[in-house]
């Protein structure tokens, strides 16, 4: 399988603290790749490095053979990497459909003036963006609440809306930061199916951070385990589960 994402000795320190230390691994096109580790292991920092929100201290990130390190977040997003956030960063004061439409930014092009005088091409584009947004909302099952403000959504709905927003970028790579946080068992179960579904439907590669071990084991093709900023192991779920270093670090020593 083709490698879509390649991390090469990526590191980041915050004033002496190595939040991410010399991490390297590859992600293949089309796989669902899990990233696990205890709180504070550096998982979210790694996501921030990949999406340009935090500059790397050293190391390289290649995406489809292209060097991404040093690019600002919006350029990385434009390359086709979408993400969600651990603490849910929706545009809370805007409606659900507006949230999704905003992510159509890079797929549209009308400038200020053509919007003000409302040129035909601009109107067509606007209509397309609108349709696309509703379509994605339908897909995540939120189309009946599309005009409501995002802040009025429940936890699970906000997580789904965030995924919808990321999908509107039409990414090839989707980074999900703890998508199941705050969900109950049945919601988590649904989520598993949903992630598989969008992977297939959008031909996505999915990289996800998750604490809920059963979900990760069940869903992911491969898993990387981080502890104290360092990569402990990468492998398929069965192998990872047996790895003593992982059990020690993550599940707690016997």
């Amino acid at each position: 399988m083709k490698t879509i994402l390649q991390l090469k000795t990526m590191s980041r320190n915050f004033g002496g603290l190595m939040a991410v230390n010399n991490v390297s691994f590859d992600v293949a096109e089309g796989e669902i790749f899990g990233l696990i580790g205890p709180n504070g292991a550096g998982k979210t920092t790694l996501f921030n490095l990949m999406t340009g929100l935090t500059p790397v201290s050293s190391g390289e990130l290649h995406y489809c053979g292209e060097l991404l390190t040093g690019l600002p977040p919006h350029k990385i997003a434009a390359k086709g990497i979408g993400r969600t956030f651990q603490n849910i960063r929706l545009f809370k004061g805007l409606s659900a459909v507006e949230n999704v439409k905003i992510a159509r930014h890079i797929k549209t092009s009308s400038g200020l003036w053509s919007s003000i005088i409302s040129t035909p091409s601009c109107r067509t584009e606007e209509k397309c963006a609108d349709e696309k947004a509703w379509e994605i909302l339908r897909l995540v099952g939120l189309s009946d609440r599309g005009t409501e403000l995002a802040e009025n959504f429940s936890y699970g709905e906000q997580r789904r809306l965030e995924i919808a927003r990321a999908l509107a970028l039409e990414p090839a790579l989707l980074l999900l930061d703890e998508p199941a946080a705050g969900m109950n068992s049945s919601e988590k179960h649904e989520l598993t199916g949903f992630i598989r579904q969008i992977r297939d439907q959008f031909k996505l590669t999915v990289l996800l951070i998750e604490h809920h071990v059963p979900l990760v084991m069940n869903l992911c093709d491969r898993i990387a385990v981080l502890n104290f900023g360092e990569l402990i192991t990468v492998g398929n779920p069965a192998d990872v589960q047996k790895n003593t270093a992982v059990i020690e670090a993550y599940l707690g020593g016997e």
Partner: protein
Amino acid sequence: MEEFLQNSGFLIVTMVQQSLLAMSLYYPLMAGQLSLASPGFYALGGYTAAIIGTHEFFTPLRESIGWLAFPLEWLVAGVLSAILALIVGIPALRLRGIYLALATIAFVEILRVLCLNLTITGGAIGIFDVPQLFESRWSYIWIFGPLLVMMLFFSYRLEKSRTGRAFQAIREDELAADSMGINPTRYKVLAFVIGAVLAGIVGAMSAPFLNTWNARQGTFDASIAYLAYVLIGGSRSIWGPLLGGAMLSALPEVLRPLKDSRLIINGLVLVFASIYMPKGIAGVISRLKRSLTWKSRKNGGEA
């Protein structure tokens, strides 16, 4: 009617003018940027108009184009404001929140001291005898009014446009917007420039309206006043600055019969308005509207 316009015409036009200035602060705020630079651009615009209108260097130009000198003044003021906004905005907009506000206040004050010292701006006295577009103050509604309508239309279209959505996204969450492919710097600067150009044009229109122009026109006090307009009016829709600018600029005049204590009352109104109308006048109106439609729906259901 005639008499009413004679008497209150100036005030009404002032209300429109102040609404426009409040709007000039609203555009950066739409993109989440608290910029208080408007008075600086307002002053710049006013000086542009006053200098083109009175300086002997421009006499041949004025004589050859006649009344067209006025739209030319607006154009030049707009262009100069845009250029200055780019120069100031690109470095300053890296700052956030109150820091940006303070940097823009500093910009306004530096510009003021500069204007106080230059010969071309007429020093402390400023520039007077600015050529008039209309005889009566009331008639100035024919320039400020259309500008207001244009800006309302502009805002209406902007809010529903790709650019407007980018502004809103940055206001809601700059990092998330960045991660969604929106270049924050570009749109923040754009919003800042739109506000600056508007303030510059309003300034250029105001120099004839006020007959004179001097360094007292763009000050820190004005910065804060415009901020109050937007916040008391409501910062979430274009109607906020419109209502806030109009009502707050009229307030001291409405309170005129109170004589000595009018500004005390004015201050109390500001305090109470910020406490009891946290979403501004526009917020109160939309709440009223919602409760009215809700009631009528309920009544309809019963019937």
